[in-house]
């Protein structure tokens, strides 16, 4: 009865390649690595209690678990507290310019298939000055892992509203409250056509590690929003979602339950998503999450379940993970790279071009 809408799918409907596609081409470590192999000699200099510490520890663990060669890992950051991250990791790294990490990372990813490229960025870095580079990296589907440390504030410049700060935020730069609405990084990423979108909490090591592992395994651009507490300038921003009751867990193939499982997400007759008591509606009516759905509409609808003003409820986990052509793979496939004499000979032909003449 209904017409095939395949043609409308923005990405091929193929099953996402399982396993470690995102790391294809990256050499493995010769010896097993542990978390502490990834710690650099630099003293970590975030404020006491900063959520960045927990994220650092988890990332070090995740990288060790991936088993790839340390020297084939590159971390690029912008500017901000979070962007100091590369200094603390004993891999290759660039602490670049405010907002511009995706640009350098794209160049690195295009140049080298054998590197695992990570971006660490903040809400200001990624979404204020760097918003355009972020959405273009997502659109192109460059094989990058983007970790967006969202503390909903500018940390390094001492506390101004960021594009994720709630409306009405009071800071020195907005003494009677900010008047702009925040971005939802997940919705923005989905609107930009992102093929992998996740969200995690700084303090939830297991959950964060799971999402980061999946991001690394995904071939193409993965963006993971990480809720990060800034005890100095925006303390407690995520307190309300730290209790498990507030989290809407997204796991591919599992019913979408809230907190302990008392409530679940159901599709109403209107087609909209709503929360319902599982006991009342029955578990079979609870939406089963399909992260691999080629159509991003349901992922987008799930993203709307967030309560962005008070932040008392937030979906967390992997919203979307679909296979699509990968920019850097396709770009590399167009280029032949002869070496030595072969290259010089064809080049000499290019120098001559089609119409030459001789002067004796």
């Amino acid at each position, binding site marked *: 009865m209904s017409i095939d809408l395949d043609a409308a799918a923005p990405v091929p409907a193929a099953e996402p390649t399982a396993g470690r596609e995102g790391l294809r081409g990256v050499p493995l470590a010769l010896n097993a690595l542990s978390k502490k192999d990834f710690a650099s000699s630099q003293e970590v200099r975030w404020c006491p209690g900063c959520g960045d510490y927990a994220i650092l520890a988890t990332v070090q663990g995740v990288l060790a678990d991936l088993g790839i060669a340390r020297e084939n890992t590159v971390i690029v950051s912008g500017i901000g507290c979070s962007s100091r991250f590369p200094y603390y990791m004993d891999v290759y790294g660039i602490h670049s310019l405010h907002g*511009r990490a995706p640009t*350098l990372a794209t160049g690195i990813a295009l*140049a080298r298939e054998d590197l695992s490229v990570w971006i660490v960025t903040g809400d200001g870095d990624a979404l204020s000055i760097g918003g355009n580079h972020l959405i273009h990296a997502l659109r192109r589907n460059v094989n990058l892992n983007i970790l967006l440390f969202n503390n909903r504030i500018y940390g390094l410049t001492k506390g101004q509203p960021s594009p994720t700060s709630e409306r009405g935020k009071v800071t020195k730069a907005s003494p009677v409250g900010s008047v702009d609405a925040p971005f939802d990084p997940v919705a923005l990423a989905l609107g930009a056509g992102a093929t992998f979108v996740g969200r995690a909490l700084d303090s939830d090591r297991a959950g964060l590690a799971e999402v980061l592992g999946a991001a690394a395994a995904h071939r193409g651009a993965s963006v993971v929003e990480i809720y990060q507490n800034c005890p100095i300038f925006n303390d407690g921003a995520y307190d309300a979602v730290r209790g498990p009751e507030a989290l809407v867990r997204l796991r591919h193939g599992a019913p979408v339950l809230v907190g302990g499982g008392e409530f679940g997400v159901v599709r109403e007759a209107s087609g909209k998503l709503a929360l319902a008591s599982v006991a009342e509606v029955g578990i079979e009516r609870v939406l089963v999450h399909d992260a691999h759905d080629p159509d991003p509409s349901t992922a987008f609808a799930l993203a709307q379940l967030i309560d962005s003003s008070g932040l008392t409820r937030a979906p967390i986990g992997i919203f979307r993970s679909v296979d699509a052509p990968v920019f850097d793979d396709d770009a590399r496939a167009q280029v032949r790279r002869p070496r030595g004499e072969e290259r010089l000979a064809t080049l000499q032909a290019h120098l001559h071009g089609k119409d030459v003449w001789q002067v004796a």
Partner: protein
Amino acid sequence: MTTLKTLDRVVIRFAGDSGDGMQLAGDRFTSDTVFVGNDFATLPAFPAEIRAPQGTVAGVSSFQLHFAGSDITTPGDAPDVLVAMNPAALRANLADLRRGGTLITDASEFTTRNLAKVGYATDPLTDGTLADYTVHAIDLTGLAIAASDGLGLARKEAARTKNMLALGLISWLFSRAPERTLDYLDRKFASKPTIRDANAAAFRAGYALGETLEGVAVRYEVPPAPAKPGTYRQISGNKALALGLMSAAAKADLDLFLGAYPITPATDILNELSGVKDQGVMTFQAEDEIAAIGAAIGASYAGQLGVTSTSGPGMSLKAEMIGLAVMLELPLVIVDVQRAGPSTGMPTRTEQSDLNLALHGRHGEAPLPVIAASSPGDCFHAAYEAARIAVEHRTPVILLSDGYLGNGAEPWLVPDLATLPAIEPTFATASDLVNGTFLPYRRDAKGARPWAIPGTAGLEHRIGGLEKADLTGAVSNDPDNHERMIALRQAKVDALAVPDLVVKDPDADADVLVVGWGSTWGPIDAAARRVRAAGGKVATAHLTHLNPLPANTGEVLRRYRRVIVAEMNTGQLLTVLRARYLVDAQPYTWVKGQPISPSRFSAHLLTVIAEEAS
């Protein structure tokens, strides 16, 4: 019967509506010029609009060709022959035509409506406006339509061949054999036989027209120009620049990465390099100029030769990233094909007004080498040199070209790759460890730091835009370290080996020295010849390295009573030379969006020389 006259040099300008095929006619005549062995230089000029309204002055597209029996350096200023396909083209170009020059125009276009469109109250063909010129007002449209009679073409399509009719006439006038152009048409329109035949017919008709045209008593011939033996081709600056980058990458055994965002007149570099798929050349059309240079820096970090190309507005946007590249000390070539500024300015016009930006356009003390190309063909060598310095000295290098060089063309002695200087990237290896530690800011004798690329075990390190401690590269706020690092970065640039400035002063007795840089080379050389031909004495010296300057620059400047710095800006190199050498050099400035006019400049020089002599 007509007689044959030999000329040393001729300037022809083809001008018409954007749709009139003037670039094509000019290109074709240039190729033919190549064949007969003349030296040449060309200058296409496009309207600012993609397709400006027909018959308007803004919509005029032109192509100028200077060809000669001796070595020349510019596309010339005043044309000897002007082909003007309509009143708009006449209006826009007549003022440039040499007094006594030849005008060929399409009489059928001189309708009241067309004349009014460009503000001619009366018909210039009849009102005496053209009294000083040899005028051939021919019904080119009608003749073109007539020529393709019987081929079944629509009138409009047939009329389109009028550029070939004009070309036929010009070919006859300059004693060119018709076969080569007819061959060319065969090849070009192989898949469209009717169009081919119509164009060929028009060309033949134009050629035949010469014999019958009233008042044409002479045909001209320009003898071949003597040239260094070798294999030549015609080349534009943008193309040569792309080839120079490719050659440097190949000789260094590096992949080449171009990050670019389209912008007039630099886009062709992106186009050229995008077309090359068998040389390890990757092009990346970024979302903006900042992303373009950012990606190029990333590629360099990853071990490729990172390049970014743009024009003025894009250069302004790249400022912050260029500063980062200075701090990171990685190879990077930044190409600026300058256009007329400020701001959006006149995008299709040329200028040399980004020198200040290249030298100073970043916050903080951020020195880097600056190189400028002197001619379309020299874009190859300048690009090669820029890449060599970038790779071997681990530094961003700014390479300045401009719209005139980028779009202009000239004959070019095809270089032999084998004879180009070697380029040594030498990546760091585990052997660079000092007591087991890698020091990313330890310098070699040239002051360059190690290029340690990801994938090299044991050299993992972090770099960034914060000031770094000498040797270790760790973040440092130490006052003395900062001062030392600033000095080290400056010293690295200052220590570059730059060839000495060469002075051309035939009798070694000139009082006046003209200093130029970049694309003023051709006009200055042409002006100097005119001066010498008029009995004046003038010396010339041309800078290709703008930072650092050649070591002998000060000595050269001080040798002359009067130093004139000729630039297409208000005196940017002038300021550098005065500050550095305290020499009272004076400007010759020309900011019209066009190359300096050799005739105007030579006139100026003659006045100056006379002043000095008196």
